[in-house]
């Protein structure tokens, strides 16, 4: 058999190509064509090599081939001018190979605000290479580039890392992120990474890329060797973009941009928690922008959602100051959306439920933290200064990210009013008057009705102290009342449990979100214990916090919130009965039964109230619920 000297285009390919353009070719014609195509290709390649030689290069470029084609009056091939090698990939099924050709959103590219930096100026540098025929040992100097002072290794590292993170291989990405998190020698690259991250605006259609970029932010923020300095602002603005902007990806309801927003909020809180000194100036600014979004009814609901989770991430005080006062006004809009049952509204309504859920989560924690702060305040006044400081410290350790550092929870023993003064650097909230916990609760209850209560009930078995009975939660709500006796509220308010799952200490992956809000788990327990013996609780919580909290909450959430069919027999079963009262919605009687396999049919589709808590959860893959109108039928 003769050896083949050249790559050949088989006639099958020719036939395929012809078919794709709608021409049927006979075997002979295809064979002839194949041969001719090969010849022409070879000819073009040979001609193009001339251009390569005259350009004094060794590598044949697409441009060379195009020139050869142009001179032989053939149409040139567009779109392959990139300097980088095009990845040539095989398809797993069948022997199919293709050149990867990604789609580029031209609009995004054109409107992108970040203009890539130009390359460095072409210049000539002279160097005495050989003096009298002897080599010059003096170093030749480095190439001045736009990337000043970057060594070649760093540059390579930068390229590899960005490629890995933005690439396809999840494993590689993980490795890259880990390294980014721990590498101590990349300070010089920080601006470049920040620059890359600022590219979020150009990939708002691609959730995956956004996610990767956020992960990059997280790694940078967590890297203990990096001083973010002023770059933190750029990072924060990138994160805020992900939280607030109506991303292009949000247009498709199938895209789970909610998770992204949650994750971004988590990051935001993390940044504020760990780099408070750098971002304190931004705190007020961000609150304002969040407020602006929230009060803008034109904005889509996903933006509102972002604003709520953002506030939530900034701490309960942010919620108290921005969300809470704004709630009555906002409620009207939301209610309108939620009460519209038309099919065309289904999607918006689903979004509305998300917002509802987010608000619910936020206010719950607000209530809880407020109660807790009262406890601590009272306790601090009793136990004296040393106690408070330790308490404060332990609290901060236990609940990072709850509040930004500028407002330590238990610092002054002055009660609620102290938060005013501790309002964070540059936060003039003079006009804001604190609302007492009971008043707040009443107000919120009027919005959410028993949804609020139901959620508190889920915190039942928390704190390592098995609740003696259903009355215990009731006491739990009252328990802070022991230190805050002014709470005259007698409503059922079983136990304060925040479904807080925004915690920087989590590994940060939104996918793993059902993971336990460490806070939610520990705080109530501690507050419970503290009512009897604060010192004991402190020591216990600090010693055994991590393991216990996670395991417990893992127990709790699936049972309480998602009694999925496969969840096995529930450990408990109880009925919550009550009257749902809204200020603007008519009161409804309802009864919810937590049973192993709650039948779907038991829930009248028109009653959304008792399903809302679930919708509001940010933990489970929300995609499931947002898919359709039916997603509202939940096995609660």
């Amino acid at each position, binding site marked *: 058999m*003769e050896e083949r*000297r*050249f790559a050949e285009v088989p006639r099958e390919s020719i036939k395929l190509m012809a078919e794709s353009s709608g021409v049927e070719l006979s075997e002979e014609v295809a064979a002839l064509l194949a*041969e*001719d195509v*090969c*010849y022409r290709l*070879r*000819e073009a390649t*040979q001609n193009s090599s*001339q*251009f390569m*030689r*005259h*350009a*004094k*290069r*060794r590598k044949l470029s697409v*441009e060379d081939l195009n*020139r050869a084609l142009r*001179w032989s009056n053939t149409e040139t091939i567009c779109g392959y001018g990139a300097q980088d090698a095009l990845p040539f990939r095989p398809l797993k099924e069948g022997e199919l190979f293709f050149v990867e050709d990604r789609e580029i959103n031209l609009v995004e590219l054109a409107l992108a605000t970040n203009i890539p930096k130009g*390359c*460095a*100026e*072409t*210049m*000539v*540098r*002279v*160097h*005495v*290479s*050989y*003096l*009298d*025929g002897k*080599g010059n040992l003096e170093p*030749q100097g480095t*190439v*001045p*580039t736009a990337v000043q002072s970057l060594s070649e290794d760093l540059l390579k590292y930068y390229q590899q890392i960005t490629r890995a993170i933005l690439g396809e291989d999840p494993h590689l990405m993980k490795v890259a992120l880990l390294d980014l998190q721990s590498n101590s020698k990349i300070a010089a690259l920080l601006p470049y990474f920040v620059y890359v991250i600022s590219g979020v605006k150009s990939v708002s259609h691609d959730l995956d890329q956004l996610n990767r970029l956020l992960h990059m932010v997280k790694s940078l923020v967590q890297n203990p060797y990096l001083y973010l300095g002023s770059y933190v602002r750029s990072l924060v603005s990138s994160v805020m973009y992900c939280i607030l902007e109506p991303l292009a990806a949000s247009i498709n309801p199938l895209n789970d941009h909610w998770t992204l927003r949650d994750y971004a909020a988590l990051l935001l809180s993390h940044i504020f928690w760990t780099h408070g000194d750098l971002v304190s100036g931004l705190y007020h600014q961000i609150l304002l922008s969040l407020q602006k979004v929230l009060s803008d009814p034109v904005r889509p609901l996903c933006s509102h959602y972002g604003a709520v989770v953002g506030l939530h991430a900034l701490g309960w005080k942010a919620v108290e100051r921005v969300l809470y006062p704004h709630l009555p006004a906002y409620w009207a809009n939301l209610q309108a959306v939620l009460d519209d049952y038309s099919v065309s509204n289904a999607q918006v309504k689903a979004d509305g439920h998300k917002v509802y859920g987010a608000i619910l989560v936020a206010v719950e924690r607000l209530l809880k933290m407020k109660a807790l702060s009262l406890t601590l305040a009272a306790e601090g006044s009793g136990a004296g200064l040393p106690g408070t400081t330790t308490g404060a410290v332990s609290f901060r350790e236990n609940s990072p990210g709850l509040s930004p550092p500028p407002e330590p929870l238990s610092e002054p023993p002055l009660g609620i009013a102290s938060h005013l003064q501790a309002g964070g650097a540059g936060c003039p909230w003079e006009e804001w008057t604190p609302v007492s916990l009971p008043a707040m609760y009443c107000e919120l209850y009027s919005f959410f009705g028993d949804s609020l209560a139901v959620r508190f009930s889920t915190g039942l078995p928390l704190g390592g102290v098995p609740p003696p009975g259903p009355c215990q939660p009731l006491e739990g709500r009252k328990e802070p009342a022991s230190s805050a006796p002014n709470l005259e509220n007698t409503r059922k308010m079983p136990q304060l449990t925040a479904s807080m799952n925004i915690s920087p200490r989590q590994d940060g992956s939104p996918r793993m979100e059902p993971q336990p809000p460490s806070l939610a788990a520990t705080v109530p327990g501690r507050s419970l214990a503290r009512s009897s013996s604060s010192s004991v609780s402190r020591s216990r919580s600090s010693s055994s916090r991590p393991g216990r909290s996670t395991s417990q909450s893992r127990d709790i959430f699936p049972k309480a919130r998602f009694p999925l069919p496969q969840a096995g027999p529930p450990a408990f079963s109880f009925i919550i009965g009550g009257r749902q009262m809204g200020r603007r919605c008519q009161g409804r009687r309802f009864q919810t039964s937590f049973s192993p396999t709650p039948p779907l049919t038991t829930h009248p589709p028109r009653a959304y109230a008792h399903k809302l808590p679930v919708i509001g959860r940010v933990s489970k893959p929300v995609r499931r619920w947002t898919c359709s109108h039916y997603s509202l039928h939940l096995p609660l």
Partner: protein
Amino acid sequence: MAAVQDGPKELDAEKETKPEILSDGTSNLLGNTASGTLSSSPLTAAPAGGATKMEDQQTLIAVLQFLKRNKLSESVEILRREAGLGEHQEDSQATDGSGGGKGDGDGGDANSLLSRVSITSAAAPQSMPVKKDQPDVSVVLSAYSQQGDPSLYQVYYSGLKNFIESVLDCHRAELSQLFYPLFVHMYLELVYNNHETKAKAFFDKFSGDQECYYQDDLRILCSLTKKEHLKGNEVLLDFRTSRFVLRISRDSYQLLKRHLQERHNNQIWNIIQEHLYIDIFDGMPRSKSQIDSMSGSLAGEARREVNKAKVFYGLLKEPEIEVPLDDEDDEAENEEGKPKKKKTKKDSLGSKSKKQDPNAPQQNRIPLPELKDSDKLDKIMYMKESTKRIRLGPENLPSICFYTFLNAFQGLTAVDFTDDSSLLAGGFADSTVRVWSVTPKKLRKVKSTAELNVIDKESDDVLERIMDEKTASESKILHGHSGPVYGVSFSPDRNYLLSSSEDGTVRLWSLQTFTCLVGYKGHNYPVWDTQFSPFGYYFVSGGHDRVARLWAMDHYQPLRIFAGHLADVTCTRFHPNSNYVATGSTDRTVRLWDVLNGNCVRILTGHKGPIHSLAFSPNGKFLASGSTDGRVLLWDIGHGLMIGELKGHTDTIYALKFSRDGEILASGSMDNTVRLWDSMKAFDEVETDDFTATTGHIHLPDNSQELLLGMYHSKSTPVTHLHFTRRNLLLAAGTYNSQ
């Protein structure tokens, strides 16, 4: 010539009608037009010989037919009147003409045409050998159509092969030269007659026998399997139309002839008759190494007759300039008395070139621009510098400064230094030309006309005053080309810069205003190289259209077209006396052209790859050429002989330069090295007596290692250009390649 310039399409049409006639006719036209355009010179162009009266007439008729077809009736009338042709003559010719045109089909393009043009002008030397070798072009073209038995081709070829292998050793080497051209022609004949499978079998069987330096051509040949492919392929068109030249001793030739006649091997005999030119010489058959050193070009070796013409390789006398600038009288004398009159005068005034070089052309053989005051100043500077020049030699190697282009992402394609090493120009693949000042003196533009009006023209420092200080910068970018710039060249007076580009133009830039002054259009294809004459005013360019053109700055059309190369002209260099131009080509030959009459006076074969660099020795006697095969060949221009081979580079040699005194040859290559060679030794070791031998067969000593004085590595920077300063410091330039 007008046709050549105005558009390939017209030519194409012409070719269809009567290709064989046209080629001769065009070369004729070229000669005529060139002499007409060189109005500034009192020259008379030598008639492009070889064309008989009959052919003249045929050409005219072909032109007439073309004009007619394009409805240019007035032109037809005029031409007919001028030529004194009767209508009947034309008609009678028309029938054959159209017949031939149909047979040829409408394939082919300007290139193929140009190749024919060039071939004929080259292959039509003035004195025809005794043997009937005047190429009967019609036979050449139709040759492939005659049918031999395709199945017998292999038998023929192997028969010849067996014969050649059986002859005496001394003849075998010579006759082995036949293998390659015969192989190619037989293969092409098979392809041309649609015996595809036979052709393939033939190729597979015998392609392995061919010399390794033909691999590139064989690769192209191999891909060609259809008759249709023949039409567009330039390389193969050369084979169809040009005659492969072989030099064979009379004894060997007789041997071959006898063999073929005995066997009645007409097929091979026909091919030899029609496609090969056998240059028979009397004397000892050449050895294998002798043959190998000279072969390798696309169309075989050069005929001996071609290189017989006298070349005036001596240098022109330097104009006399006293170091303190001469007064008015002397100056006037210099200007007017440059011709013969000066000869006597020069001898009395002592200078380094006081003896008239017997090999030098007449001072006014080519009209040269007069020296301006500034030129004289520069000459004085040059002389002053020369006195400080370092005497180089094997013991005293030059220092090397490397000018590295950094961040040349767009691709550096060409570099030039001014003679005084004050400016550096770079041509780039992004169509720009950039000029840098290498000295602390910044580049400044001349002020605008409005501003110029207000300056004091009487002041002493008017030259300084006209410059706009605001525009001072280290480098300037010149925009204008629409394709990669492949060649740049400074004028000797540093006022102009030339650039040649892929867009088919050569542009002249002013270095006073940093604007484009002229775009010279003529090459309709990429222009690979351009260079100013050492005296300015003239420049030469060469390109993909296979011709080199001689231009004068103030003419928008070329003064001469040097046609003859069978493939792209890749590099062009002026002889130091400006009377000759050397061109290197992809056809692996170097040709030397006489600027006076446009004749090709030397064809130098021996390279095995496209030639990308050329350099004349400062005394004008020698030429060095570097090619993609990494070898530098040294040539004696006077005798047209190869006198040295410098092996060592591992990649294309893009830069060659002799030191100012010619003792050292520096070569720069893609392999990131600069090598220095002992050129004095290389030239000395060749005994001059050998040259006088008419055979011209020389034994090349394999002494590259002895001649190599030094090898200097750059840091991943291919060497694009080399330049010796006036004090013999070697400057190298290239772009840093970070990969």
